[in-house]
């Protein structure tokens, strides 16, 4: 799945110890949620979105501890 604002693939960040997460534009969140739901991946989406420097609003999909980041990345990469 491609990030519509950066034109780069959406990726699952694994930095830090808080569990993996995905940053995505607000316009794309519905598609990301649909994909995760279809694959029974548990997550929660930040209730707020932030726009930096006039760019599209971005929010965070939190996957939480114990989530298989590699598997989620594969799911994103295989999605159109």
């Amino acid at each position: 799945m491609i990030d519509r604002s950066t034109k780069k693939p959406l990726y699952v960040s694994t930095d830090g110890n808080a569990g993996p997460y995905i940053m995505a534009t607000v316009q794309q969140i519905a598609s990301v949620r649909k994909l995760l739901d279809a694959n029974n991946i548990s997550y929660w989406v930040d209730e707020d979105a932030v726009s930096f420097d006039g760019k599209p609003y971005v929010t965070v999909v939190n996957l939480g501890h114990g989530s298989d980041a590699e598997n989620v990345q594969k799911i994103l990469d295989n999605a159109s």
Partner: protein
Amino acid sequence: MTLIDEITLLRNACLSSLDASHNYYAHTKGAWRLVQQMVWQGHKGTIRNQATGNTVDETELAGLAQEYVTGYLASATFQHFVSLFEQFAFDFLRIWLTEYPGALSENQLEFRNVLDAADKSEIIAAVVQKEVHRLSYKRIDKWFAYLEEIAGLGCPNLDQIQRLAEIKASRDALVHNNGIANSIYVGKSKSLARFVDGARLELPQNYHRDSWQLIRQVVADMADAGINKLGN
């Protein structure tokens, strides 16, 4: 000041503090999300903690941001919500018992307290303080059973009390057991336990928000019920 005025002030102060605390959570989270976006968009930066000598660059900071938002920040503000609620509940009890001390007529007092008191109101204050302190060590359902006995407010309802019990048990596990659920957490939470013994407690955003909303609702309901009762 009348008891109605006191309850009104107490309610308004607590609700204002709860709102301020949630704003702090939302704004601080937003600020960290901005940092993550800035790094995502290629900006550079370094932070040095002068006290510890620790230095982090933008990549490390972006990773820490997620932990700070979902871990430390959520936990600290959640604990603050519960602390504000406890303060409200005990202050409510204290001012109600001070106005209607008859409920404590069987309580015992050391004669020293009478000798040290300047007047009757100081004696009442000492007895009330001791009673509220005693109650603070009981489980949350006991607080509300006691409150219902002395004030007959008719709130919070059983479902709200059970949810508050789980919220408080979560807070206690965060504070006293390094965020790990234990048998005490499970016992206090009963059917609403979100985690098993030994699991790390998490505070997903909807739970964090729902807890804040419930606390806010109960504070408003208790105060309004007290004011209505006194006004009739």
